[in-house]
């Protein structure tokens, strides 16, 4: 018996790998919402339904706009955040995976397969959890009150990047990268409703969304160091929101909030252009990859998010400490690629102000502790928060620690 052609190429073998995850990034809802990271709320566990932040009237509860003083505006601001084991991942890529790709995985496979297996095993360990980067730019926004009615408009830029490495189903690392950049223009109008035994504010918002996104999902051996592109998709849409906030309900200091946001159809994304990452300019586009991305992004829904919460403002604590509030929220918005359990929607937190300048906050979000600190003056604010995000379906499955800092200048 005589056989030939038994030597399979590494590339052909790698082509067998398929994503082990049920979904790659961007197929479900958590990135479809039109919002920016609210660092102030994040520090107190994400509670925001019944307790306002500078950005909550635009993205969380439009009714909060009614709490605007006569005039307020932001001239410019920015937010930056990271999540997951970013440093460990960078070190692994910088010291191990990157040099191996440069050296040639095919050669390593041929000459030292155990080394390649060790690299892959480490890639699975380091890359299994999600890593994120968040950036936001705050262009001018303004808000003003006219009697019982208040209105605001702003321009925001928000970017999110996600990365993870999973087992491609047959032992080959599968790299999943996703990046999204939004320009958001929200307009919010709110009014105080008279004639009730408690104070009630109601508001609506409409947000114009211009979105660009891209993704790269492939087995590591299939990435071509000599010719690799990313393909940008672009689309736009409008998202609507509505909310109410009742203050001093039943007892002084007890506030309740309810909001429905992100109402609107999914953004219809169309292929925009390619960006050459490696290789010569002018190389042909990969039509199959573009088609796969198109199909993947079109599969993404756009579920509206319901948020309900309560906050209690303590009347007095101690000299030098004021503005103490305790709050709890429930939100239907999933933070994962999957529909999450009820517990994953719970938020709780407390916040206080020291001598009117420093704010401290703490909370629990999705079973993980959070904390925040801010320095606030009439013309500038800076806030830092650390908080947890659950990337799995249930609490504790894929917990991710995040850090974010926010700075803005304006009149508050």
């Amino acid at each position, binding site marked *: *018996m*005589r*056989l*030939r*052609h*038994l*030597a*399979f*190429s590494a*590339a*052909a*073998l*790698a*082509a*067998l790998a*398929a*994503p*082990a995850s*049920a979904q790659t990034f961007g197929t479900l809802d958590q990135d479809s919402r039109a919002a920016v990271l609210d660092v102030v709320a994040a520090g107190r566990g994400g509670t925001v339904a019944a307790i306002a932040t500078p950005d909550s009237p635009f993205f969380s509860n439009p009714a909060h706009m009614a709490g605007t003083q006569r005039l307020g505006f932001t001239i410019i601001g920015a937010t930056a955040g990271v999540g997951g084991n970013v440093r460990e991942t960078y070190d692994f890529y910088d010291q191990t995976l990157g040099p191996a790709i440069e050296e040639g995985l095919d050669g390593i*496979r*041929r000459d030292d*397969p155990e080394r390649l*297996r060790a690299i*892959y095993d480490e890639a*699975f*360990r380091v890359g*299994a959890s999600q890593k994120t980067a968040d950036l936001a730019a705050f262009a001018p926004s303004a808000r003003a009150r006219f009697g019982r009615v208040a209105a605001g408009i702003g321009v925001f830029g928000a970017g999110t990047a996600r990365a993870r490495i*999973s*087992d491609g*189903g*047959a*032992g*080959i690392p599968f790299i999943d990268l996703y990046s999204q950049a939004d320009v958001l223009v929200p307009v919010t109008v709110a009014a105080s409703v008279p004639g009730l035994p408690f104070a009630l504010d109601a508001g609506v918002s409409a947000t114009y969304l211009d979105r660009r996104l891209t993704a790269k999902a492939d087995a590591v051996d299939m990435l071509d160091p000599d010719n690799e592109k990313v393909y940008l998709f672009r689309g736009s849409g409008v998202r609507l929101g509505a909310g109410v906030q009742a203050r001093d309900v039943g*007892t002084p*200091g*007890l506030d309740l909030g309810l909001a429905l946001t992100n109402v609107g159809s999914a953004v219809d994304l169309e292929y925009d252009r390619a960006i050459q990452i490696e290789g010569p300019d002018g190389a042909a586009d990969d039509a199959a990859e573009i088609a*796969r991305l198109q199909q993947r992004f079109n599969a993404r829904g756009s579920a509206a998010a319901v948020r309900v919460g*309560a*906050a*209690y403002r303590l009347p007095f604590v101690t000299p030098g400490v004021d503005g103490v509030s*305790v*709050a*709890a929220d429930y939100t239907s918005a999933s933070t994962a690629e*999957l529909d999450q359990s009820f*517990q994953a929607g*719970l*938020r*709780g*937190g407390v916040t206080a102000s020291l001598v009117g300048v420093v704010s401290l906050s703490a909370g*629990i*979000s*999705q*079973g993980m502790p959070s904390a925040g600190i801010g320095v606030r003056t009439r013309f500038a604010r800076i806030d830092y928060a650390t908080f947890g995000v659950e990337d*799995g*379906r*249930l*609490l*504790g*499955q*894929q917990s991710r620690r995040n850090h974010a800092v926010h700075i803005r200048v304006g009149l508050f």
Partner: protein
Amino acid sequence: MTLRTAFAALALALVLPLSACDETGNTSPDDVAATISDAQIARQNGDYVTSVRLLEGALTANPQSAPVRTELAVTILARENLNLLDLDRIAQFIANGVGGLATGDAPAARGGTCRYAADPTATPFDPTSVAGFPAITASRAEIDRVIALLEPVLPAALRGFDVCTQIGADGALVYDRTAATAQLRAAGLSDAQISQMLATNALARFMRAYLVVTTDVPQQTSWYRLADGSIGVCAADEDALITQTRPAVETLGTALLSLDTRARSFGGASDIVDLATDAFSDIRDALGDYCAGR
């Protein structure tokens, strides 16, 4: 509502998330999608025990579920640390002698009726001396379990490969790929799951076939690497060898059908399928008299 009552209600709401009283482990057996998601996350975290436990429970409740069978098969192979690197290592060892154990090659069947024994360019080797072979052998029961799990999932068109009739004159495989793909989708598998299932089925069947030809054949075989890159196999009774290895050939053929479906229906590279089809053409040619006599 008094202040005390309001504060107590808020405190209770705050304590709830701390309780960590989530639904892990309490998933309804009927909630297959949720169970699969939990199992996938556990697998990604390296927790194969939890992943297999969840999927075994789901399989008990839904014995016909193709997604559950697929996920369980994928997880078992991952737990056994069997992957494409092993397949690649075997292929390289057979073809090039790379990756053999230090125990040395098998003695050549010099003399007798072996046509390669007198070929001075032919290099004898022992196919069981590939690195990692003991681990693969130790995983045989799990390999068989994976094949058994996927057998009901496989459409009829992807089973029962006949080397004599299923390679056309043009070298293309003869089977109804469209019907096979439609049947898999009708079974509730997503395209990603179909890709995984086909890759896993191919890997498991390749491993089983390799174990069959290297350890199950009841007569001694001699393997040679020939100067033109071919592999020669001799046995005292070559007709019996054909009969004895026929199940393995069919198993490999079934693996080939899975790979071909995956490559041509879901965008994977088809190089490996073309290479393997060439190899099967050789097998068919080697079986020429046998096939002609049917």
